[in-house]
């Protein structure tokens, strides 16, 4: 094992890892927005909008992320959709994770028992107020956990955007192997870096989860 080489390429890989993190964070934030729109459309009592939301989720869930990426990047220009690789990576990631997230959010909201909704409505709260003050605080824990799992999948799937030549972690690794011919050393380092990113995400998710479900363990109100 060529330790010297590993030390030498580490800064380059770390730099590329930041692109992986950057692309993932953007996709997750944008994807959350997509998910909220999908959940909202689904909640409206308007049939065509419900169909659209369900159909969208089915198409995304029924096709590989890899194919979605290739279709948009190489097929997009045919219908006038031209994006640079980084933007394309973010957009496809966001619209992909958005579909899964919408199901996770809907599941979390529906997990709150209907009596909570009724109690809130009987006091005179409207739908939106009930969602804000009563349902969301109780759904938040489950929502954070399921969205967290999806975020981890997204981070790992981001290695696929190397195919459209975004210089992220995996792409950089392949490039370095091309000039050094040391796949074992470099892919090992790459894997370690993915593990670090994934565990950081898990840590953040766990903290957020504990914060959101704090009320279940609290005895006394905090001022």
């Amino acid at each position, binding site marked *: 094992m060529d330790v010297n080489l590993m030390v030498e390429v580490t800064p380059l890989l770390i730099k590329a890892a930041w692109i992986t993190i950057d692309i993932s964070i953007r996709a997750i934030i944008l994807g959350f927005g997509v998910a909220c729109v999908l959940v909202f459309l689904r909640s409206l009592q308007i049939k065509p909008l419900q169909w659209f939301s369900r159909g969208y989720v089915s198409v995304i869930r029924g096709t590989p992320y890899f194919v979605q990426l290739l279709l948009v990047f190489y097929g997009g220009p045919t219908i006038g959709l031209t994006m640079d690789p980084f933007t394309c990576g973010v957009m496809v990631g966001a619209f992909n994770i958005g579909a899964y997230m919408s199901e996770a959010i809907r599941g979390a909201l529906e997990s709150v028992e209907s*009596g909570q909704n009724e*109690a809130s*409505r*009987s006091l*005179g709260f*409207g739908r939106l107020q009930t969602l804000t003050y009563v349902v969301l605080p*109780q759904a938040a824990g489950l929502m954070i956990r399921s969205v967290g799992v999806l975020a981890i999948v997204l981070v790992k799937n981001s290695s696929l955007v190397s195919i459209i030549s975004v210089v992220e972690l995996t792409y950089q690794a392949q490039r370095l192997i091309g000039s050094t011919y040391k796949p074992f050393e470099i892919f090992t380092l790459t894997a370690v870096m993915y593990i670090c990113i994934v565990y950081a995400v898990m840590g953040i998710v766990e903290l957020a989860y504990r914060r959101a479900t704090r009320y*279940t363990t609290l005895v*006394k*109100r905090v001022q």
Partner: protein
Amino acid sequence: MTIETKTDTPMVEIVNVHKKFGDLEVLKGINLTVPKGKIVSIIGSSGSGKSTLLRSVNHLEVIDDGVIRLDGVQVNRPDMKGLAFERHINHIRQNMGMVFQHFNLFPHLSTLDNVTLAPRKLKGMARKEAEELGREYLNRVGLADKADVYPSRLSGGQKQRVAIARALAMQPKVMLFDEATSALDPELVEEVNLVMRDLAKEHMTMLIVTHEMAFARDVSDWAMFMEGGVVVEEGTPDKFFSNPDHERTRNFLRKHLSSQH
């Protein structure tokens, strides 16, 4: 409308109310008037439609036909749609307190916050003012010392008393009780009944769906027996419980009075 009608307006009016779940008609033309300050108990076996009727009063169930009024204002408004109806019903509900069989306290809020949430967010009351009010209502249900505790730390009876305080904090015109003591262990029923008796003394208008015959007889001004979506019999509690006219009422009372003790 003239002013003099206001004083005589019944607090709750239920006129020819019909309700279907699919093909099953659960309310077949119910009429009931609850005058201001009076207490009406509705009894009947499960599936009789009594809970559906109560839930129809604050529109948790949407009735198919008939009219429900609160203090002269029509609750169900088939002529209103969408957001306009939302605004209307939210406003109406602020004047009706509802107590559920399973309490439905908000588990993510402390006892005090459960009570103050609606006054703060719906009436725009300042936190300090709302908390004073909240503590006063918790005191009235005997739980002043539990203000900062979370619902998971309370017994069933305590939860239900908090739920009553939460409803009272909106200073409603009428209180609706949907089998408020049915989910409680027998030894916890009395503490909730005591709170309800206190309300009765203060002349709160109440509509009570209950299985507690002795309690209903004691506090009610009017009792009503429902079966299969119709009112079989109604009357003053003295007459109703000791000498009912209908065979079906007698059967029901016999079963329930004997099984209670």
